[in-house]
């Protein structure tokens, strides 16, 4: 892991990198920072051993290699699968853990840094993924079975769950307010600063001057979109958010969708599902009471369920937008 550095400011933000993206940790009490970074790195390593498709000996790799047969897994992996199952169920299958094989067909079968410059190949024909309901989890025996030819990808859930766990553990064990951001998937816990945790919302997680900033006091905030983690596949440009019905990148509708929810897992599930759902996303988010900011591919902005107005709002859509 690259060397980490402390930001030279009184905000006490610890920054490092993992999973081809940036990791940021902020605590409200300076004396908690060292302990918090230890918790952060332990949890990232733990999750990596469970859910990295690119580590040969991770549990997800063993399950994918054993597709078609029962694979014994740890309690931690069963728990992760239970979260992925809940997310799939709650999003009506829009966020599906069985998109792994489809991502591999698009060339995303190794760390993203290795494919960022493009891969050789052609866009495959549409084919639905195996589907989350085809995954069998035997909690008592501690086994997971996926259909032959299927592969899991838990990227959508694992990163957000890690942020939630780190924030929860830091607040509980060290007793301070904390913000954790894993590539823009943000979780907060403990007592927030009086003004709340200020989070910029932009196109890319590393933006230094995001167009919007909101204050959150609990739960999580996540942004999904098609404007990053895209690569060239032969003559096509593809990205990592797939439609489970086709196994191909979702049709462009929203460039980015930011959602605040009761946890980072829920925020990430909702923001990812919104990108997949396309035009129906605003009404879906409204029906769940989830505050969200959606930026269409033409740059227009829609807001849902009480997301605060901002100067950049120009929007096209229904009553929820402006």
């Amino acid at each position, binding site marked *: 892991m690259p060397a980490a550095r402390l930001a030279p400011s009184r905000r006490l933000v610890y920054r490092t990198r993992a999973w081809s993206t940036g990791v940021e940790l902020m605590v409200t009490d300076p004396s908690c920072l060292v302990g918090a970074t230890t918790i952060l790195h332990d949890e990232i390593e733990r999750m990596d051993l469970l859910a990295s498709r690119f580590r040969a000996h991770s549990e997800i790799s063993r399950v994918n290699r054993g597709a078609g047969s029962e694979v014994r897994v740890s309690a931690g992996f069963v728990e992760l699968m239970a979260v992925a199952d809940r997310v799939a169920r709650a999003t009506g299958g829009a966020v599906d853990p069985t998109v792994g094989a489809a991502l591999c067909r698009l060339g995303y079968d190794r760390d993203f840094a290795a494919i960022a410059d493009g891969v050789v190949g052609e866009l495959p024909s549409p084919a639905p993924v195996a589907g989350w309901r085809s995954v069998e989890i035997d909690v008592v025996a501690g086994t997971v079975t996926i259909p032959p030819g299927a592969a899991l990808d838990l990227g959508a859930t694992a990163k957000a769950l890690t942020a939630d766990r780190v924030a929860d553990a830091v607040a509980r064990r060290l007793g301070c307010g904390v913000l954790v951001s894993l590539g823009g998937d943000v979780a907060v816990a403990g007592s927030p600063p009086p003004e709340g945790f200020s989070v910029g919302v932009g196109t890319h997680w590393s933006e230094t001057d995001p167009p919007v900033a909101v204050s959150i006091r609990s739960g999580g905030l996540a942004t999904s979109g098609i404007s990053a983690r895209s690569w060239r596949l032969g003559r096509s440009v593809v990205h990592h958010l797939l439609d489970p019905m086709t196994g191909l990148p979702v049709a462009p509708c929203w460039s980015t969708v930011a959602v605040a929810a*009761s946890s980072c897992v829920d925020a990430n599930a909702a923001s990812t599902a919104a990108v997949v759902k396309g035009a129906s996303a605003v009404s879906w988010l409204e029906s769940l009471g989830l*505050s969200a900011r959606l930026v269409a591919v033409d740059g227009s902005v829609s807001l849902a369920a009480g997301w605060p107005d901002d100067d950049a709002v120009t929007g096209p859509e229904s009553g929820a937008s402006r």
Partner: protein
Amino acid sequence: MAQLTPATAASVNRRAKARRDAGLNRLSTATRSVGVATVVVAGLLAVYLGRAFPGHHATSSAAAPASAGTSVSAGTSASSTSTATSTGSASSAGTTGSTSQSITPATQPPARATTPPVVSSGVS
């Protein structure tokens, strides 16, 4: 005043035997009732827990993909009972994600920030 006839040893034994038999009968009835009640309560508790933690419903590998939009019934199979155990242990292990089956909003919606952002949320 009428004179009381002293009970013979035989009649005393008969009465004692009758009382013992009646007591044993009551005890037997009580034991059967407790047994039946235990089975009924255990059954009701199993049904309640099955519904409280619907969990994952195992299906065959030939099942339709989720995106096809078919629904999954919660709860009566052995696998769903198993997953109830998982859900419970996941919570006790400190999972901070919502244990609700749906996605839930934050306690407080985001507000316009009054200070510069500490971090940015964006696509990664």
